[in-house]
């Protein structure tokens, strides 16, 4: 998704204004010339300036008749399949965050692998091999070798 200079500039300007509005609400400490609001305000002004430069460039291009379209979608993202795959990556990650504590690491990871590999149309053999093998290998590596505790669920309680 590629924005033209005009919408990108407007977006930058809005972000800048939001930052400045939030920053001026920070409490001011007596006796300090520059408090917690100082840097965010400078950053906010920077966003606004970048936004103005982009908007100006867009208007100039428009006058010359060479302006880029307001929004271009890459050919890759126009195919439904590609969008579905990208969606699957995002949804899979969000679902993993939600499920890893109730289900435990082993089951959540196996489900994530099956879901992603099947969405990307990998064969069933490789899918099952990875979904059954990799969670255990990683569980071993992280809990035993690196001593990172991973969320435990039913399978972990039964096995270890």
């Amino acid at each position: 998704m590629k924005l033209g200079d005009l919408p990108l500039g407007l977006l930058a300007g809005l972000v800048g204004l939001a930052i400045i509005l939030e920053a001026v609400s920070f409490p001011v400490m007596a006796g300090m010339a520059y408090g917690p609001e100082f840097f965010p305000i400078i950053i906010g002004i920077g966003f606004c300036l970048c936004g103005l430069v982009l908007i100006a460039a867009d208007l100039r291009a428009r006058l010359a008749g060479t302006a880029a379209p307001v929004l271009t979608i890459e050919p890759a993202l126009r195919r439904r399949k590609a969008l579905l795959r990208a969606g699957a990556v995002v949804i899979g990650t969000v679902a993993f965050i939600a499920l890893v504590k109730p289900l435990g690491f082993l089951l959540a990871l196996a489900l994530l692998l099956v879901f992603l590999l099947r969405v990307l149309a990998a064969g069933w053999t490789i899918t099952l091999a990875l979904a059954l093998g990799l969670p255990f290998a990683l569980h071993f590596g992280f809990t035993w070798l690196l001593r990172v505790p991973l969320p435990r669920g039913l399978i972990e309680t039964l096995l270890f």
Partner: protein
Amino acid sequence: MPEALAAALTSVFTVEVLLTIFLSALYGLFVGSIPGLTATMSVALLVPITFFLDPVPAVAAIVTTTATAIFAGDIPGALLRIPGTPASAAYVDEAFILTQRGESEKALGASLVTAAIGGIIGVLLLTLFANQLAGVAVRFSSMEYFWLGCLGLTSAVMVSGGSVVRSALSLLIGLMISTVGIDIATGHPRFTFGEIDLLDGVSFIPAMIGMFALSQVLRTVTTDLQTESRVAPIGSLFGYMVGTVRRYWLNIMRSSLLGNVLGALPGAGADIAAWIAYSLSKRFSKKPEKFGKGYEEGIVDAGSANNSAVAGAWTPALVFGIPGDSVTAIAIGVLMLKGITPSPRVFQTDGDLIYAIFLAFIIANLLLLPLGSLAIRLARHVLTIPKRVLMPLILVFSILGAFAVDNTTFSIGIMLVLGLLAYFMESNDIPIAPAILGIVLGKVIEKNFLITMIKTEGDLLGFFSRPIAAGLGAVTVALWLYLCLAPLIRAARNKSKRNHSESETPS
């Protein structure tokens, strides 16, 4: 120095460290040779593991992975015309034309031997420069660090290529991310949206993993899941390697020096070093007409420059805590977690570790010769791993890496959000590197600004009150003026030229 060197020797030549270097070299070669997976990404994915290693093997792993991944990027570049890492992009056509003529051994032999030599020269220069620089830098105070931080950010905007506005936007995004969390002076939470997990700020490693790995997964699953590659077998490289060194030793020396200096500039990494070395190589070559038609001289220059740049990036990272590229930005994070703060005194306080880093670099580059040859032979098989299997695996390792750093699922969320942000930025031609430097340097700049303001009781002219600070400040301000005014001057000049030509042509 001799004691530190002896201590470094004993700490590097242990089974644990040597095994770590060996495994990291294999890992770096593997990841680097897969198109789309960059050296930075391979290091970002490695970081959670380094947390649980001792400082020396942890840093050795990072150093080895980068050095080998940058070389390995040449392999798919030469064989398939797809650079494995951006650092190989400068000479990918040159190498591929050689392959098409059936001379892939010539291209790969040249890039392997120059990578190893460039890397070693880079480390030797690093040893030399860093120590000298540290001697000057011990006298630096908050004012000098403030300006160095600003100078680093400015150079990141200037060299990142493409439009200055977009680079500046990227930088601002990074700076903005760095302000999230409790304010250092007053303890007031900023931009945390009431989220307790954000009080400490945006966790850096999940952010890096998201921006480099997740965005790449998204890009790959939407674009080129289909491409399958076939690669012809490759013959012996040894003869070509010896021939390259004998013929081009002067080029290797020159470009290693150049690459090292460029690598030390914040924001300019191995990829920019390779591009500049390639164009200089063409300009100074005795046979410039052969460039672009399958000629190894450009590969020699760019190949030694990018590996030397990898070491150069460590100079400002170790002495000032200002990363020379995205990899050293991660490395600084790892060093801090190990209780080692990069500073000019690091040679006194952690001298053995610093020399251990240098030694690890040298070992990694020596190992590159045998392991690199092996990787070239195995490349045929690695390059045929289907992406539909690889991408889910990278996502799994990204998730696990983000989780392991702070042991919270919130970090996975950070990785996801910043991955989507990076995907959006890249789609809009906004480079990622300035944002990374912004995240790292934002806190440095703000902290040193506030310290200076407390020292000078709010007098901004205090930033010019010490000679070195004044010099650095003048350079920085001059660069800012140049960045702002150059486009205006250029536009005005174009306009007057156009007016001029219009008045000359009778209408």
